[in-house]
């Protein structure tokens, strides 16, 4: 069941997003110190993964010429490796190498359509190196960067023995629930608006949300180079591990049949999509945690 229970909130800004920790504990000072430890880690991840900082490792990777190699920190490597795995798993629907066409669109231009052949990355897990092949690769880890960060912050909270926590990034675009705020309680996460709104009870589960409702058409289909033509909004729900945050982006791009296929490929994954038709009911795929309509 979900219900309210007292919790403390700590906020920080990084990765062009707000991060929020909701910690259910009576020890306010200990919670503040744990949050400070989390945010110090977050600032470091920001420095590694923020593509808008020319000193970040992701920016440096983007500047490599074909044949060049960069040795990166373990966090950069792990996040990039996860991004590649999810790129493959989603058949390319989640694509972390769209920095250049996204920048072109933000600058008022159009991304080339189709995108055409692009460079490739070769990862050496023994040496933590990334080598660029064929052409430079502009990376934008986007949602997976925030999801990866939430997972690392969750590790710190568990290390500090503060398991009753909800972690939120980007005002809700990435949510990670650890244990509920009290015994037998789950965290309540709202999904959708209007008649389709529902609340989902989350414990040790993550939600990623993507859509065009807030930031416009900023998600591209790498097959066409055009804005995603699937759902208007999409949510992916999965066990912790940053997958939900990337796969909600993928669900914006994929067809209903492909989302079904994705859920078969990912045991434990659930997806909810909302179409552009305001009268159409949301569509659910895979495994959705217990939910109930939001009270009016």
């Amino acid at each position: 069941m979900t219900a309210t229970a007292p919790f403390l909130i700590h906020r920080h800004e990084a990765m062009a997003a707000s991060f929020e920790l909701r910690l259910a504990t009576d020890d306010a000072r200990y919670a503040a110190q744990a949050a400070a430890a989390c945010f110090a880690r977050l600032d470091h991840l920001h420095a590694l993964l923020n593509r808008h900082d020319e000193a970040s490792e992701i920016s440096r990777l983007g500047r490599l010429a074909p044949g060049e190699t960069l040795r990166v920190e373990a966090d950069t490597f792990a996040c990039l490796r996860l991004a590649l795995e999810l790129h493959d798993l989603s058949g390319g629907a989640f694509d972390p190498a769209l920095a250049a066409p996204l920048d072109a669109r933000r600058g008022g231009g159009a991304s080339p359509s189709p995108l055409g052949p692009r460079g490739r990355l070769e990862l050496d897990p023994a040496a933590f190196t990334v080598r660029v092949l064929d052409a430079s690769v502009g990376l934008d880890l986007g949602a997976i960067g925030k999801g990866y960060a939430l997972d690392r912050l969750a590790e710190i909270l568990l290390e500090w023995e503060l398991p009753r926590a909800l972690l939120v990034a980007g005002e809700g675009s990435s949510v990670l629930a650890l244990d509920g705020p009290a015994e037998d309680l789950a965290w309540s996460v709202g999904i959708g608006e209007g008649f389709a709104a529902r609340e989902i009870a989350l414990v040790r589960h993550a939600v990623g949300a993507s859509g065009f409702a807030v930031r416009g058409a900023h998600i591209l289909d790498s097959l066409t180079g055009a804005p995603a033509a699937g759902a208007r909004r999409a949510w992916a729900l999965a066990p912790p591990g940053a997958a939900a945050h990337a796969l909600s982006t993928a669900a914006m791009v994929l067809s209903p049949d492909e989302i079904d296929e994705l859920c078969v490929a990912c045991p434990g994954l659930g997806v909810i999509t909302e179409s552009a038709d305001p009268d159409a009911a949301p569509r659910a795929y895979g495994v959705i945690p217990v939910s109930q309509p939001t009270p009016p």
Partner: protein
Amino acid sequence: MNPPVPASGLSRRRFLSGSAGAALALAATPPLFSIGASAEKPLRLAVIGFGAQGRVLVEALLKVPDVRIVALCDIWDYARVYGERLLKSNGLEVAGYRDVEELLAKEKDLDAAIVATPDVFHAPNTIACLRAGLHVYCEKMMSNTVEGARSMVQAMRETGRLLQIGHQRRSNPRYLVARDRLLGEARLPGRITAAQAQWNRAVSEDLGWPKKAAIPADVLAHYGYPDMHTFRNWRWFKKFGGGPLSDLGAHQIDIFNWFLGRLPSTVVASGGSDYYKNHEWFDNAMVVYEFPLAEGTARAFYQVQTTTSSGGGYFEQFMGTEGTLRISENPSLTTIYREAHAPSWEEWVRKNYLRANAAPAPEPGAKVDARETAALATYRLPVVTNKAIHQYHLENFFQAIRGRAKLNCPADEAFHSEYAIFKAIEAVETRRLVTIDEPVV
């Protein structure tokens, strides 16, 4: 916390991605090669101190070819075990130690030590390593006392070993170009009349620790710590550190001295423990130095605030009659401004000493176009770095060990510069103008 295990990719997109000319962006592959492989014998290193700064240095060291960390020392088991795991994940099995003395007694095949302990331990640890025959890279400040810093210079001279101090901006290519070309050769600011630097941070909770990771009281007492809070927040206590002017100001006041080519002659300052009531060191300070330069006096203002992030972050700025150089380790905070009356900088743009952020305005003619307001001319450095900010300074240290470079910040030069910081602290504490004489080692 593992993601769902992929069973297979999606058929349609997988088919498409494998077809000719498709937009396949990425491919994870098995290891094909190893970076930094060479015939050169690796330098064997011990890292002493694995707190926040020790971790930064280790991450940078892991990117340097031909060096190998073989020993790690920290009195906190929690930090040391974290470090050992990090290094193991990078293929490095290291010996862990709590005591420097034990490390030096057992590790007989070391070339150098990296010291990143609390300031009070810099001098004894560095001197012990130098006397054991090691070259040493020690974090700044050299010490929390002038005497401690001076003893390090003396040990460097006695042993003939190298001692590099971690003022890492001195090896940063962006800072080198700014100092040597823009200020030195092109003299873009004209006559420098003022300088300003700051490092402002938002208010923060004292550092804590996971309850299960507390150091036993007898171990803390052995190293002089009354409790775990003091151990974690040593920077705020006079026995262990030098306070914010030392922790943050040391980097930036060093840039005043290095860029202007001399020590200041006087300093006035004000600061206090006005916010945090459980700290010994002041939480804010405002400092004004006078630099008697050949062309006339320049005044340099430095502020450090630990209760507000206001004021544009952290940077050093040199202001002159023809322009201003604002530089920061964060490239996005670096900008060069030209005064409207200054001579054209097109020559320097052509020589690639700096780059214009926008096309230059056309030379005035008979006709004036009526149009929207244009932005004032700003410029940026032509250098984009591709390494971690500490990596250049560490590499300079290792190149010096191999006889291929001079140290960019040997201990005697660092002591000379840090002397001005000790004098600023003295000015805060005595609340009077302090004269800065040439320091004697």
